C-alpha cells in the first residue's frame, strides 16, 4: 500500500512539474499555535468558495492535522489566481498536556490532544519540506514575535527560497503591535489584518495574488 502511495505521489509530483503553470500553488499557512491560522484559512475559503476549512478554537492545537482546501480562486485586479490552502497545525518546540487542563479538559483528553498536536507539528514540518510552494506566516500581533520557533521557521522558509508573506493577525486586539512584527522580519512584507473581524482583507488578497499568482 505504501508502495502504491509513493508511486502515486511520484507521478503527482512529475505531473506537477510538467504542468506547473496550470496547477494551483500550494500555499501553506504556518505559524505558532493560536496565531489565527485556521481563522484565516476559513476566512479565505469562505470568501472565495463558501466552505470552511476546519473548526476554530481559542484552545491551542485545535488543528492537529494539516487540512487542505483546493482550488481556491482569488480574483484581484482582473486577474485570477488559483491556490490550494494548506492549514497546518501550530508549530512549537514543546507540547504539554497541562496547558489544556486549563480549558476544562480531562487529563486523558489532554494527553491525547498533546500527542496528536505533536504528530501535527511533525506533519507540518514535513509539509514544509515536501509539499508547499509558498508560505503565509501568521503571527499574533499582540505577542512577541522574537521566538525560537519563528526565527527557525522563517529561516527554513528562506533557505528554500519559498515566497513568504508575514500576516500580522489580530490587529483588532488592543495590545496589537504590527510594527513589532515588521521590525522582527524586515526582509519580508508584513500585512496587518484581523481574520476574525475581516479587517484589511482586501490588501490580504492583493498580496496573495501578487506573491503567489
Amino acid at each position, binding site marked *: 500500500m*505504501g508502495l502504491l502511495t*509513493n508511486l502515486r*505521489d*511520484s507521478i503527482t509530483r512529475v505531473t506537477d512539474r510538467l504542468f506547473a503553470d496550470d496547477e494551483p500553488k500550494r500555499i501553506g499557512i504556518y505559524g505558532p499555535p493560536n496565531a489565527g491560522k485556521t481563522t484565516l484559512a476559513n476566512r479565505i475559503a469562505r470568501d472565495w468558495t463558501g466552505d470552511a476549512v476546519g473548526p476554530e478554537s481559542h484552545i491551542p492545537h485545535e488543528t492537529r492535522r494539516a487540512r487542505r482546501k483546493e482550488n481556491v480562486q482569488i480574483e484581484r485586479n482582473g486577474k485570477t489566481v488559483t491556490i490550494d490552502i494548506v492549514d497546518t497545525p501550530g*508549530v*512549537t*518546540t*514543546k*507540547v*504539554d*498536556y*497541562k496547558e489544556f487542563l486549563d480549558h476544562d479538559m480531562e*487529563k486523558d483528553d*489532554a*494527553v491525547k490532544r*498533546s*500527542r496528536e498536536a*505533536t*504528530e501535527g*507539528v*511533525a*506533519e507540518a*514540518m*514535513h509539509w*514544509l*519540506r515536501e509539499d508547499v510552494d509558498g508560505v503565509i506566516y501568521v503571527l499574533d500581533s499582540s505577542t*512577541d514575535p*522574537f*521566538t*525560537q*520557533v*519563528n*526565527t*527557525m*521557521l522563517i*529561516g*527554513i522558509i528562506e*533557505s528554500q527560497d519559498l515566497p513568504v508573506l508575514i500576516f500580522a493577525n489580530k490587529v483588532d486586539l488592543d495590545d496589537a503591535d504590527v510594527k513589532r512584527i515588521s521590525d522582527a522580519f524586515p526582509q519580508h512584507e508584513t500585512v496587518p489584518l484581523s481574520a476574525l473581524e475581516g479587517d484589511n482583507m482586501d490588501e490580504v488578497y492583493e498580496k496573495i495574488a501578487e506573491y503567489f499568482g
Partner: protein
Amino acid sequence: MPHQCTNCGQTFADGSKEMLSGCPDCGGNKFQFRPAGASDSPPPEAGGDTDGDAESTRPDPGESAARRTEPPQPDTDSSDHARSGGSVGSTGSSQPSSDTEDGAQASARTDVVSPDELAAAAEPTGPASEPSEDPPDDGTAQSDEESADPNLDALRQKLNDQFESIRIVSPGKYELNLMELYDREEYIISLREDGRYVIEMPEGWDDR
C-alpha cells in the same frame, strides 16, 4: 465460612468483625478467603498452638491441591507454617510480617501484573520516542523558547545537539526538534504512548 486464618485454620463467617484485630485464637493476621462452595477445601493445619473450637473444616489434604495452586501448607509442627517465600517464621505471633506473602496473595497477584511488567511500563516516561543519545540538559532545553538566535546555523547545531526529532518527556509532554523534523526524510505520522512511533518511509530511499 469464607475467611480462614492461615495460621491456625480458624474460620470466620463473611462480614465477621472478630478477625479485624487478628485471629482471636492465635493472633495471626493473615486470612484467606474461601467462597462458600470451597468450604471443604483444607485449611492449613494448626501449628499446634491452638486448635479452634470451630474446627469443622479440618484439613483434608487430598482436596487441597485441586482448589489452589499454592495453599499455605504447614509442613511441620515445629514451624508455624510454611509460606511460599519460606523465609519467615514469626507467624505465630501477632506481629505482621509484611515482607512476605502467603499463597493466597501470591495467587491473587499473578493475575495482575508482574514486577517485570511494572518496570517495563515505567520506561516510556524516560526519553523513548527516539534514540535520543544525548538528552538535553534542562538549561538549554527549557530556556530557549524566548531567546531568539538570529544565527540559523548556530541554532540548528544547538538543537541537533539536544535530541533527535521528538522526545517524550513524560506521557503527554513532548519536546520537538523542529530542525530535525524538517531535515529528516521519513515522516513521523503516529506516536504511541509506549514510545513507539510509526513513520512513512520516504520515496527514493534507495537512491540515497
